[in-house]
């Protein structure tokens, strides 16, 4: 209900109100509290002594007529009544004076309602309900207030019905009777009736004559010295003048007063300086986000890793792989060497015969993918070791791709997988099935297999699996192409789209390889790590870059989207560890996974690793990406507010000396928000978003040999497009400055929103795109200054998606076409969605920002622009 009464809670006002309470009101409150305190002890039952009990009333117990309002049932009762009574009593006393209040409330205003109550209760109802408490006074005073309100403001209009305002205490009475247990309806009613009668003025004769009061006051001087005493001259019959009561009517009716006590927030909103703040706030957000990121490797912000899942028990079992298994490994190595250079099918025939010879069930699967005009096809072969102690409801996977991601032959890996298959088959302790999977390549093959395993494959391209096992609990891939002895193990853990395996899996491998086997463990190709700040930062940034790109980094990557935790183990370096040591690491890891009682879930899924035993979790690092995303939202909100404000004319700025007069005009103008022209800005932003389909489709469907030319053409098109769109816009629609603000506002709002959502899915990508798009926050039209406009355009072109692609290709000495081919492959095979983020989130925002920079909306063109706006409105 709108009302002009500015009612806001303000502690200082409450305090001063309490300190200004007049004398009689204070006395009443103190007496009530005192009686409650007395009532706490049990020696003297103050309640039976003072309550109004109809049967107890005799000539000697008439004191009850005056004591009962001060006595309450319990603390809650007392507090509620004090809260209700204080404002009403304060008002009465301020209007009529302390002495009158004292006389009335110790006389007729208490005794008359009690007599009425006694009469009805005893002689009509013939019962004996005792009453106590000040609520009778509350209703009496409410009745008086209501009559006075009624005289000023007779009706409350609800819909089309007029409701007399004097009925509001009755409504309250009914509510109290219905909701508050053991409240005396009759007692309240008698108070209310007397209040009505009194309010109508029929009880005026009861008040002591003013002449006598003045005489008393002049004689008994002590009253004048009492603090807070309201004497006959201070009392204000008309203190509230024509104002209606605000205590009596719960629903504020129309009032004539104009309550414009602006609170702090309101005044702040009108302050013109507040609109200058957002760009700095945005800048601060970006800076804090970046600084936050660089603080993470410090000891105070990162944590040591720990194993959360107790069932894993990594490194707690003795591993027996070794001894004669070395001879088996050599034999399989010979077999593998003999297969090198043969076709996929021949290799698989041989592998199948080997695993069948071990007594495992084997299956094969064909797949054919096409991306960027190239066809990726092959055949997977896999074998299932059925768990001696399990029921085929759970399984662990050991993957050995024939070729690793660098197209090197994984001779040792495949041989080791076969040896382990033979070795594992001898043990009876497996409670989960073990699947041995050999794929022809490292990305497409595992993807096809894991898709088909979960029946999520496109059966026209990928065959279904002939045999299956239970739910996959984890997967380990071996990438062992090094021929010499090795020193350390490199753990590759990035999944597709920046998803990561559960940290417990990595911790287990670290603890088995590093702790039990005594070999080194490296992450993110940091072959040497001294655990100092620069190395930690480098590890973290490499991890973020890989996560941001979202590419598959090994055979394990395809498993992670299916919530199967997986890593690839890569031996590296020149040391004394041999294949058996690698086998023992895998054996130990499998024994740990075998222990799992439920899916890995205890530890983190979102983390940044900066050393093998140091990480930060999502709660610590997420703020940096969120701050970067929020900077766009802040700017969008600021621009929206700004676009709704009338343009300040120089006239008001000139006579700033008349501060008072100016605030008045401001008050009036600032409430009248300017109508915003939404159609054109919405249209521009929508068109930018839809244009994004072009590069997305082009780069995902162009054949490989066309990718480089297509990219060059698109880069040129991209450089020209903003100018072309901008000239179309200025020539045909002539947008106003407000419309440019709105274009920017909407595009930044969308960008901030997408990035905030993305940060929960792929933190690194959101942060990367957010930082690269951060200049967009500060772009604005420069109608007067061509130099600045040119500078901004150059800056924007330097951070455009195409320019960044070219720059990164140059940095890594790659061909832009090769990057696009990889992206198209990952898009079609792995379902990587980074291209969507680049082309449908970042690029449209960049386009809208470029259009804003190139915008021309001068004050001189204002006249024509309004004419044209009218025309566009008619469209």
């Amino acid at each position: 209900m709108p009302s002009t009464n500015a009612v806001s809670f303000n502690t200082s006002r409450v305090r001063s109100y309490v300190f200004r309470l007049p004398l009689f009101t204070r006395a009443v409150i103190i007496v009530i509290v005192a009686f409650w305190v007395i009532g706490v002890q049990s020696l003297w039952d103050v309640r039976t002594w003072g309550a109004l009990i109809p049967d107890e009333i005799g000539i000697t117990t008439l004191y009850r007529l005056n004591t009962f309002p001060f006595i309450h049932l319990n603390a809650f009762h007392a507090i509620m009544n004090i809260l209700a009574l204080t404002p009403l009593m304060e008002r009465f006393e301020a209007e009529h004076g302390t002495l009158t209040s004292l006389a009335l409330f110790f006389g007729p205003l208490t005794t008359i309602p009690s007599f009425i109550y006694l009469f009805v209760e005893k002689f009509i109802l013939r019962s004996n309900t005792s009453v106590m408490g000040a609520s009778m006074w509350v209703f009496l005073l409410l009745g008086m207030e209501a009559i006075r309100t009624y005289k000023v403001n007779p009706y409350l209009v609800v819909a089309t019905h007029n409701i007399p305002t004097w009925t509001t205490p009755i409504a309250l009475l009914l509510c109290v009777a219905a909701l508050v247990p053991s409240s005396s309806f009759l007692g309240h009613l008698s108070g209310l009736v007397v209040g009505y009668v009194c309010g109508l003025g029929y009880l005026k004769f009861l008040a002591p004559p003013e002449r006598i009061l003045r005489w008393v006051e002049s004689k008994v001087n002590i009253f004048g010295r009492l603090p807070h005493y309201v004497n006959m001259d201070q009392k204000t019959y008309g203190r509230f003048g024509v104002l209606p009561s605000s205590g009596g009517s719960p629903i504020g009716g129309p009032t004539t007063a104009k309550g414009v006590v602006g609170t702090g927030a309101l005044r702040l909103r009108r302050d013109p300086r507040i609109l200058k703040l957002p760009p700095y706030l945005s800048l601060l957000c970006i800076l804090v986000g970046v600084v936050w990121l660089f603080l993470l490797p410090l000891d105070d912000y990162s944590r040591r890793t720990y194993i959360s899942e107790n069932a894993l028990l990594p490194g707690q079992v003795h591993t027996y792989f070794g001894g004669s298994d070395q001879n088996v490994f050599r034999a399989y190595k010979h077999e593998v060497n003999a297969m090198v250079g043969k076709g996929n099918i021949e290799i698989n025939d041989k592998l199948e015969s080997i695993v069948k010879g071990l007594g495992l069930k084997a299956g094969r699967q064909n797949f054919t993918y096409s991306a960027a005009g190239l066809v990726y096809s092959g055949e997977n072969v896999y074998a299932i070791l059925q768990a001696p102690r399990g029921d085929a409801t759970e399984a662990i996977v050991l993957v050995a791709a024939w070729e690793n991601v660098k197209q090197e032959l994984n001779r040792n890996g495949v041989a080791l997988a076969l040896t382990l298959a033979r070795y594992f088959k001898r043990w009876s302790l497996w409670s989960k099935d073990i699947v041995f999977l050999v794929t022809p390549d490292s990305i497409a093959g595992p993807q096809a297999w894991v898709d088909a395993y979960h029946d999520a494959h496109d059966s026209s391209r990928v065959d279904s699996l002939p045999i299956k096992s239970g739910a996959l609990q984890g997967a380990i891939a071996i990438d062992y192409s090094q021929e010499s002895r090795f020193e350390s193990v490199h753990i590759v853990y990035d999944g597709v789209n920046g998803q990561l395996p559960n940290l417990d899996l990595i911790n287990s491998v670290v603890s088995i390889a590093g702790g039990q086997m005594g070999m080194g463990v490296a992450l993110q190709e940091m072959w040497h790590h001294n655990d100092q700040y620069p190395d930690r930062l480098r590890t973290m940034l490499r991890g973020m870059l890989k996560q941001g790109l979202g590419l598959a980094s090994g055979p394990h990557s395809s498993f992670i989207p299916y919530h199967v935790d997986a890593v690839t183990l890569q031996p590296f370096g020149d040391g004394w560890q041999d294949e058996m040591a690698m086998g023992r690491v895998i054996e130990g890891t499998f024994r740990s996974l075998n222990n799992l009682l439920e899916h890995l879930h205890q530890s983190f899924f979102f983390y940044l690793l900066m050393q093998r035993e140091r990480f930060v979790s999502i709660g610590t690092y997420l703020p940096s990406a969120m701050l970067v995303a929020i900077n766009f939202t802040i700017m969008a909100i600021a621009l929206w507010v700004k676009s709704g404000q009338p343009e300040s004319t120089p006239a008001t700025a000139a006579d700033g000396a008349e501060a008072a007069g100016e605030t008045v005009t401001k008050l009036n103008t600032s409430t009248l928000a300017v109508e915003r022209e939404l159609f054109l800005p919405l249209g521009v932003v929508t068109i930018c978003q839809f244009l994004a389909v072009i590069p997305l489709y082009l780069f995902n469907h162009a054949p490989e040999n066309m990718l480089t030319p297509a990219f060059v053409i698109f880069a040129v098109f991209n450089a020209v497009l903003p100018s072309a769109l901008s000239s179309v816009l200025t020539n045909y629609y002539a947008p106003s400055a407000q419309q440019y603000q709105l274009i920017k506002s909407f595009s930044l709002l969308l960008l901030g929103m997408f990035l905030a959502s993305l940060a929960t899915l792929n933190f690194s990508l959101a942060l990367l795109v957010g930082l690269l798009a951060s200049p967009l926050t500060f772009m604005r039209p420069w109608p007067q200054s061509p130099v600045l406009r040119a500078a901004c355009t150059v800056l924007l072109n330097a951070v455009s998606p195409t320019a960044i692609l070219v720059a990164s290709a140059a940095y890594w000495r790659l061909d832009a076409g090769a990057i696009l081919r990889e992206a198209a492959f990952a898009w079609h095979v792995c379902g990587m969605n980074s291209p969507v983020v680049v082309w449908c989130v970042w690029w449209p925002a960049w386009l809208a920002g470029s259009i804003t920079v190139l915008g021309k909306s001068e004050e001189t063109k204002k006249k024509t622009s309004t004419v044209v706006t009218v025309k566009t409105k008619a469209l």
Partner: protein
Amino acid sequence: MDGGKVTPGRTMALLAGASVLRLAMFTLLPGLPDLLAGRVEISTPVTSFKRLQEGLFLYNHNVSPYDGGVYHQAPLLLPLFSLLPSFAAFPLATYMLYIGADLLSARALLRIAGSGEAGESALFASPRREKRASGLVVAALFLFNPFTIASCVGRSTGVFTTCAILHAIARAVSGAPLGAMVALSFAAYLSMYPLLLLPPLLLLCYDRQLPKRATRSLTQFATTHLAVAAGVLAALFWMSFLVAGSWEFLPSTYGVQLTLSDLAPNVGLWWYFFVEMFDSFRSFFLAVFWLHLSCYVGGLTVRLRRQPLAVLTLLLGIFAVFKPYPSISDTSLFLALVPLYRHVVPLMRYTFVVAAVIMYATFLGPAFYHLWIYAGSGNANFFYAITLVWGLGQSLLVCDLTFAVLRDEWEVERPEMVGKEIRQI
């Protein structure tokens, strides 16, 4: 934007554009309809197309459709869909049915907007009414609203309820109270909650009666028309009884809504509460939630007696937040009626906040659902938090619209306060 005069040509172009867009989404993006049909934001247990197909299968094999405990929709949908060519063999017929429902809704909206009821009702004329949205714009905002398109492509049966409710309002504003009652009965038959719209709709019918055959007494008017609505509902129930063969459809359709026995997640606020709740409190809180949902009807109807259409709009907004199984189809119905109040938009204060909150929730909702269900790295609280934000955004819009409508009324009573800042307490 405002100058869009409604001409037959433009209307046809708009409807054609909307149907081509929908048809393209149905046919050119083959994975999309099924993807959307599986989304919890679109398909609730009482509107899901997949469940409808399940019920249809049972019905066509002479098994009671409610036996599986999956189908919770009205029985009369079954003969309707089994008259159509089978969805598996010839999906186009189903697509056309859904597109047709959307177009009919748009036509009803055109009629509602054309009547000008939003700005000038029988008892109240807004001083701002000349700045009203053209019917074409209103219809276009409905037809091209992504939520509408998504619920049409996801083939939620809420589309039919939307169509029936809009037709009830359209009949009411064009002075056909009987038609309005029939349409509302259909809506109530399909989803039950539209029954709560009866009081404001009756008032709207009463206000917009044609002068020739006007009934003066509101009591008499209400009695006759309530009898009509009850009669139509009774007839529908009887037909359902004939189709389903027993009365068990009542507990399986309306009973599920009343007792929330299916706790599938949705964008509403109920499911999480009742998932977490101890069974002994369940019936108490069911009563509280339903009481809460229905308590707005009386208050709003009385308070905004002079603008019954505003009451209907606000109630639809409230239902879209607080009903047991809300979906974005309910939101799209509310958002379809909001543009009718174009003239009070300058009085609204949180338009940008509301738009931003709703959009944020639109993007974060699926992201968090993914984290919960697929990635396994989030949990149910993630999604529930976002549905809270979604509800917050919509209730903010309801509050803001209420404020704007009330302020508009108030400025007529108090012309001296026009343009002054006031505060809502």
